[in-house]
């Protein structure tokens, strides 16, 4: 359960038996395909989720950067993001384990909606914890979860965002651990979650690697993926880790600045890999945004899906090992990249995803002849934020917003 010094199982004792049970289930069903679990998972991912997703040659970006740019289109997965890969895997695993109830946390709502979809599909009762502030910022996603039959429980403690929602979900799990599985939303948390979520997400790079061989006739020189908790990142990287010639770039949210305000306990970014330090949060040792004492900072990003103070332990390890390069772009660059991709390629990316394209824009020359970018999700969910955030900035290429002054 370790990635170098990272990882581990830092959870209340009450959860440890459940975690041991999960470890056992992970080894049997996921790693050893017992009872054909992985076959069923892959089949459902195809039929219900819409896999494989394409790897698309991006003509206009390729022209712009004078290199071959390919897009791995996870935005086309059911629900609009890579999140379903993991949610479907875990809900199915919970069924195999005989669990009768699902809990999950969500920040921007993408993991919550994916879990709610998977739970409806597999007929599992589901409750999703979501910070009250996030509920107010992401009403469409709240409604989608409810439509799928999930309960959405507002978390009012603290700042009411993802961090608090994770803590609250762990509390629910600790209370109902015997019949409940916690569908964690990223490659974070105690072992086996980081490894298991990576395995569910690695279908991204498994497909992309094959598709690149077919379409480009070669592996990419570099793979770019945005990194918050890191599930799309690890999913996009996993099968390339052993390919020495493929550079892996984890693009974090630089927010408004990389500087932190220790006094206020605020890091106006979510760049745990780039600027964080080792610590223990939500069950794992990893890189964190924390103050000198070890208190967790409030993170920030224009993309609420990246807005988290921690990151998956395996990513932290791969960065330390030099296998993955941790880079970051700020809110402005991400927002501009959002507009650029929408206009040039007819793909409106999630604001999370836009970070990867912002890095491509600023650093295309270092990325080699063939670049693969993981389009982790679509941007429909972000329209309201984009209108607001664009209005506060001077972005040349943004369309005129005047017609939309009334909001939605």
């Amino acid at each position, binding site marked *: 359960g370790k990635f170098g010094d990272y990882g581990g199982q830092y959870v209340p*004792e*009450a959860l*440890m038996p459940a975690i041991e049970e999960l470890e056992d289930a992970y080894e049997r069903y996921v790693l050893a395909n017992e009872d054909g679990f992985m076959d069923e998972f892959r089949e459902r991912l195809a039929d219900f989720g819409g896999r494989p997703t394409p790897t698309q040659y991006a003509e206009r970006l390729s022209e712009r950067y004078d290199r071959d740019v390919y897009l791995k289109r996870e935005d086309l997965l059911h629900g609009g993001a890579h999140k379903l890969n993991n949610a479907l895997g875990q809900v199915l695993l919970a069924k195999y384990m005989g669990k009768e109830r699902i809990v999950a946390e969500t920040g921007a709502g993408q993991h919550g909606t994916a879990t709610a979809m998977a739970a409806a599909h597999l007929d599992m009762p589901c409750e999703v914890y979501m910070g009250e502030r996030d509920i107010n910022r992401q009403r469409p996603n709240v409604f989608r979860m409810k439509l799928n039959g999930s309960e959405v429980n507002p978390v009012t403690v*603290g700042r009411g965002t993802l961090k608090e929602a994770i803590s609250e979900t762990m*509390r629910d799990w600790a209370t109902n651990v015997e019949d409940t599985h916690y569908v964690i939303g990223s490659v974070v948390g105690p072992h086996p979650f980081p490894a298991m979520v990576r395995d569910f997400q690695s279908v991204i790079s498994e497909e992309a690697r094959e598709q690149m061989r077919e379409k480009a006739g070669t592996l990419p020189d570099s793979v770019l993926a945005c990194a918050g908790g890191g599930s799309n990142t690890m999913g996009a990287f996993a099968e390339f880790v052993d390919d020495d010639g493929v550079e892996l770039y984890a693009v974090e949210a630089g927010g408004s600045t990389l500087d932190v305000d220790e006094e206020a306990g605020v890091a106006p970014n979510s760049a745990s890999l780039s600027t964080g330090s080792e610590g223990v*949060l939500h069950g794992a040792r990893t890189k964190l945004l924390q103050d000198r*004492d*070890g*208190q967790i900072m409030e993170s920030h990003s224009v993309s609420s899906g990246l807005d988290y103070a921690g990151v998956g332990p395996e990513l932290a390890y791969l960065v330390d090992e030099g296998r993955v390069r941790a880079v970051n772009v700020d809110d402005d660059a991400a927002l501009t990249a959002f507009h650029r991709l929408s206009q040039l390629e007819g793909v409106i990316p999630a604001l999370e995803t836009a970070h990867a394209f912002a890095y491509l824009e600023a650093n295309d020359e270092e990325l080699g002849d063939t670049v693969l970018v993981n389009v982790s999700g679509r941007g429909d969910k972000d329209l309201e934020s984009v209108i607001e955030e664009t209005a506060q900035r001077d972005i040349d290429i943004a369309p005129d917003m005047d017609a939309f002054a009334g909001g939605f």
Partner: protein
Amino acid sequence: MSNPELDAAFADGAAFVPYLAAGDPDFESSIEYVEALERGGADVIELGLPFSEPIAEGPTIQEAVVRSLEGGMTPARFFEFVEALDVDVPLVCMTYYNLIYQYGDESGPRPFVEKAAELGLSGFVVPDLPAEEADPLREACDEFGLDLVFIVAPTTRGDRLERIMEQVSGYVYVQARLGVTGAQDDVSGQTAASLDRLSAYDVPKAVGFGIKTGDHAERIVEGGADGIIVGSALVDIVAEGHENGDDAATVAARLEEKARELKDGAERGLAQRAPQAERT
């Protein structure tokens, strides 16, 4: 492996172990509150060093943590708090691992433990540190002669229980029911079964989670516990006083009274148990 202070505290068989978050709602009041617990009959005091992500706590203690952090509590202030306290009973620091891990210049738990030892703390409870991850802290505790208390949950059985009991010292924190900390009326829970599983082990068993009255305390001790741990019922008193703007002395008096009720209950439970024990 236990240090003598905690051994002594549990010697009479009905130890009362109250919890308060240090610095809740402010440094000075909190000092008074903790001292009131001793006057009320505390045998050991669990002092919470608040962490920003208290995943094992229910709403009552989460709010105490928020008040304490907003009141400026930090690890450094916590040690000042311990220094400023005028109590004679053993103090156990309850906190999350990241604060222990980050303290001092080198990473790892040693500097924190060294400092705790220097100030006379007796041990630690670290709710997010299961036995599997506890080696570094265990080693530091051994080096400086502090106890490391582990929690045993209703779901802890077999090999896991064995592993924990090999590492535990001071006392074992018997979690009365699943869930997070918080007062609750039904305390019978899985306590009896847990105590039964632990009967073969020689370490004091303190039961916590949900004890809020003298009657609860009585029943728990009568059922075989060597002590009771009470947090939320006391934190409620602090929270209420804070909300009502009561002065610290008034709140301290209420805490002392509640402490006495709980300690008395524990004593009654012991008294009732003894003859039964003889009968068998």
